[in-house]
Structure formats: C-alpha cells, structure tokens
C-alpha cells in the first residue's frame, strides 16, 4: 500500500514536472531538442518491445518510421487529410508492413532475421528514392503541413511553435508509456518474455509463439510509424534518408544504452543520447570533425562490454544500495 502510494506520488511529480517544463525553460532550441527526444523515446520503446521483450532483432525499424512519415505527409499534401488523422493512418500503414515483416520472423531467427529486416528497410528506402513522381526522390518532401489548429471554446491553439508541439509529443509519449507498461506487465507481456527466453519451452506450455510474434511486430511498427508521422509534421521535411540504417542504429544504441528489456531504460537512453548528440553537433562545428557516429559506436561497445543492464541497471543498483536493507525487494 505504502509502496503503491509512493509510486503514484513519484509518477505525479514527474508528470507535473514535464507539464511545467516549457514554462520554466522557454528557450525554443531546448524545447526543440525535447520534442526530438520524445519522438526518439517512442521509437526506442517500440523497438525495445520487439528486441528487448520478444528477442526479435529487427534492424529495419527505420522503415516503419519512414512509412509513417511519408504516409501522413503525402496524405496531407496530396489529399488534404488532416495531420491529426494522418498520425494514426501513418501508424496503421506501418503496422500493416510490420505484420508483413513479421511473417518471415516466424521462420527466421537471430542473424537471419536481422539481415532480412535490413533488406526490408533498404528496399523501402530505394523505393522512396526512385518513385520520384510520388516522393520527389532524394529531394524529399518539404513544406509538409503542420498540425491543424484546434479550437476549444473561444480559444484557438495553433501548433506553429515548439511549446505547443511539445505538449502533443508529451501526450503521445505518455500514451506510449502507459501502453507499454500495461502490455509488458500483463499475461501478453510475460508470454513474449517466455518466448524470448525459450521458444520451444514456451510452445510446450501452450503459447502460440507465431501469433504473439506477429502481433508484436504489428504493434511495434504502429508506434514507430506514429513517431514517424509526428516527426514529419514537426520537421516538415522527410527524405529517404530517414529510412536509412543510421536511424535504426541510433534507436538501437538508445535502447541498449538505457537498458534493453525494461521500460525506463529506453526512455533514459533516448533522452540522454538525443541531448548528447546535440552537444556533439556543437563540438563538430568547432573541431570540424564528424564524431557523432564514432561516439555512438563507442557508447554501444562500452555498454555491451561493461554495462549489460544499461543506464537503468546502473541507476537501479545505486538506488537499491542507498536504500536501507529490507526495502530491497520493492
């Protein structure tokens, strides 16, 4: 009871903090980075559901992001569909492809699945590059409409600037977070974890592992596509490069660095690394060297070698050691 109340109080505090953040720090650049962090949080949580909880190494996650952003952008530009609807249609389009990519995962495991998924995202990147009539090829789509203004009563909220967009992303992150928390704690989530740990063992206790994998690919892709659509209407520019392996490996590094197979881990990883990479961008400008990728590679290697549980694991053991004994079981 006590622990439950403490957890609620903590959640409320964190929630209020993030609600008030744009009032405390009003610098637009800072909010811009926060919005990008939020988009990366959704992406790495969705990748983590597949890799961390289900053990399916999907290296084509950028494709889902790209499908979401292109779908929503094109709908808005060509057909005038409201971006608010586009967010969900983009997610759904990605989910459809997620389901299709899930089918080979029923027969392939480990490195073979990884290679197949890389192939999938490269094919989509090439399609986006070469289908010039629709996508304007490597020029990309620019001038994507922003989210439409919302009128509540007499007040009109416009999404021209970072503070408003920040709240859209905050709500999206909160929704994703609640979804992932509930899912992973449930019978569904434990079924995923058991098939990750031992697929034959999971089947022997009645878990239909194929359909769980398909469902997870679909859901994971939905959130990636949703994040892609959020990005499209925020950056107002998408190019085939959004579907490149770069993005997948950024997301992978965030999830691993934060702590694979946990919920808080990918969040910590995504926020930390988004800010680190912005800082590195300044450094790059002054020393004229492209060090961002080197830094990501190093972080990845060091995490795998010395911090298998990720940032979350380290923080957790520090906190557990600080608490008086007896509290450890919480």
């Amino acid at each position, binding site marked *: 009871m006590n622990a439950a109340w403490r957890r609620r109080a903590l959640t409320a505090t964190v929630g209020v903090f993030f609600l008030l953040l744009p009032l405390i720090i009003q610098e637009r650049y800072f909010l811009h980075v926060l919005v990008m962090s939020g988009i990366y949080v959704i992406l790495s949580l969705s990748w983590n559901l597949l890799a961390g909880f289900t053990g399916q190494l999907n290296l084509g996650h950028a494709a889902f992001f790209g499908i979401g952003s292109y779908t929503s952008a094109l709908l808005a530009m060509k057909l005038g569909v409201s971006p608010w609807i586009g967010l969900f249609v983009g997610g759904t389009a990605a989910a459809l492809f997620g389901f299709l990519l899930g089918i080979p995962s029923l027969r392939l495991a480990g490195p073979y699945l990884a290679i197949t998924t890389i192939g999938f995202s490269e094919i989509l990147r090439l399609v986006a590059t070469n289908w010039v009539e629709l996508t304007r090829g490597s020029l990309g789509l620019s001038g994507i409409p922003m989210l439409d203004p919302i009128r509540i009563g007499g007040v009109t909220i416009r999404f021209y600037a970072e503070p408003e967009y920040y709240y859209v992303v905050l709500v999206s992150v909160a929704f994703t977070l609640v979804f992932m928390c*509930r*899912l992973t704690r449930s*019978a*569904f989530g*434990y079924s995923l974890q058991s098939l990750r740990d031992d697929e*034959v063992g999971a*089947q*022997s*206790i009645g878990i239909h592992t194929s359909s769980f994998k398909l469902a997870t690919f679909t859901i994971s892709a939905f959130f990636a596509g949703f994040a892609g659509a959020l990005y499209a209407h925020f950056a107002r520019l998408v190019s085939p490069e959004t579907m490149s392996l770069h993005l997948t490996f950024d997301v992978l590094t965030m999830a691993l660095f934060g702590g694979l*197979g946990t919920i808080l881990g990918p969040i910590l990883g995504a926020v930390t690394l988004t800010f680190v990479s912005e800082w590195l961008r300044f450094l790059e400008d002054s020393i004229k060297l492209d060090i961002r990728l080197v830094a990501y590679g190093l972080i990845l290697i060091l995490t795998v070698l010395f911090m298998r549980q990720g940032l979350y694991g380290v923080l957790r053991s520090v906190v557990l050691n600080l608490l008086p004994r007896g509290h450890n079981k919480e």
Partner: protein
Amino acid sequence: MAELLRAVDLTKNFGGLTAISEVSFSIQSEDIVGLIGPNGAGKTTLVNLISGVYSPTRGQIYFEGQKISGCKAHQVNALGIARTFQIVRIFPRLTVLENVLVGLIDRKSNGPWKLMGQALLHRSGLRDDRRSVKKAEELLEFVGLQTYCNESAENLPYALSKRLEIARALATRPKLLLLDEPSSGLNPAELIGQIRLIREISQKGIAILIIEHVMKVIMEISRRLIVLDYGKKIAEGSPQDVYRNPAVIQAYLGEEACAGN
C-alpha cells in the same frame, strides 16, 4: 483405467534416417510408463512426436480419442499433455514464480489480440492476480521450491531448475505428463527426492510417460516399460519381464551377453 493416449504405427524419418519405425503403444489414465532404450534409440523423438514438436511421417496419435498427430505443440498442450525437456528449457530471465505464472495463463482465451485488449483495459499485471499467484505458490511448494519464488530462474542450481520445469508443466493442468530424463545429472540424494516427486504427481491422477536411463528410478516407479532400439519397439511389459527379455539384454549389452545368459 481408461485409455488416454494411443499411438498407431508411428514412423518418423529425418531425411534418409528412420528415427522411429512403426511404433504402436497406448497409455492408460493414471499409468506410469517407462520409456527406455540405448542412446539414439529414438526415445526423445517419440516424446517430440507426442508433444507436437515434430509431426510423424506416417501413423497417428490419438489423445482421449481425438487425433493429435499433426497438431502444433501449443495445441497439444492445450488438450492436456505437458512435458519437460532433457536439457531444461525454463525461462532464465523470469523469476521462479513468473515461470509458473506463465504456465497458468488460461489458454482457452489466449489469442494474442484478446490478451492485448485485456492488458490495456486492466491496470493489474500478471503478478497482481492473487488467485494465480496463490496457485503458483502451491505448485512451487509441491515441488519444494517455495523459498525461491522471487529468485531469478537462471540462478537455480541444476536439480532445482528441473523441478521448476516440472512445476511449470503441471501449471498447464495436464492429464498426461511426459518427462524426458528427469533424473539426469542428479546426485543420489536428489534422485530419491525426484522419485518421490514423480510418485506424488502420479497420485494426483496424472498419467506419466518417463524417459530414464537411471534404472533405479525406472524400476521403482514404472508400472509398465516400453523398450526402443533403433527406432523400433522391441519389448513392452512389466519391469520384471522386460528386465529378463533376451531382446532387451541384447540391445543393451550385445549378442554375446545374450548368449551367455
């Protein structure tokens, strides 16, 4: 005793290799059947056929009159057949309690989309379901693991991980339990405990098919033995009969030993 499982002319080929060749047998409810034979005789293949890991090349398997050959492993389990593995296949990154809780999930409404829907509507997770937790704790107590509930499964010593696998199998409420070498790698003291556990499972009214190399175990607990050699059934009967069967002695010790006998 009613007939629970019947295998008819079961054959399994792996490419050119015949692992199981025209094996027929039946298991009654509340039976304890021992499955023995030299290495490579096809014992584990037979268990894999029954549990749906493989489907037979020829022949049928019936469980409570219903044909199960061709069913997938998860379907076979849902019908009431659970198993353990020669090399344990527990879920190492879950806790001991969670391993059993996963086994307890109701398989009648287990479509993933349905489970996902339930997950989103309810705050409480799998571990918050008091009734399941209580049931899981009872099962862990039954196999003697009650003090390890919150331990990560990968930290269990080998003998205890075998017991956890049995508890997880029992969680699926089987009518027939297939045990693939439950005593391998156990020391003499652990062996006695294992025999007692298998007897207690049988007393719950669960039929057991057990693969075993440790003769002490097999002679003490099985009511009936089936002997395989090179994929063929070479003998069947009470442990005493099988023990004296010339074909069995020949399979284990060679022709000369048989002649000397």
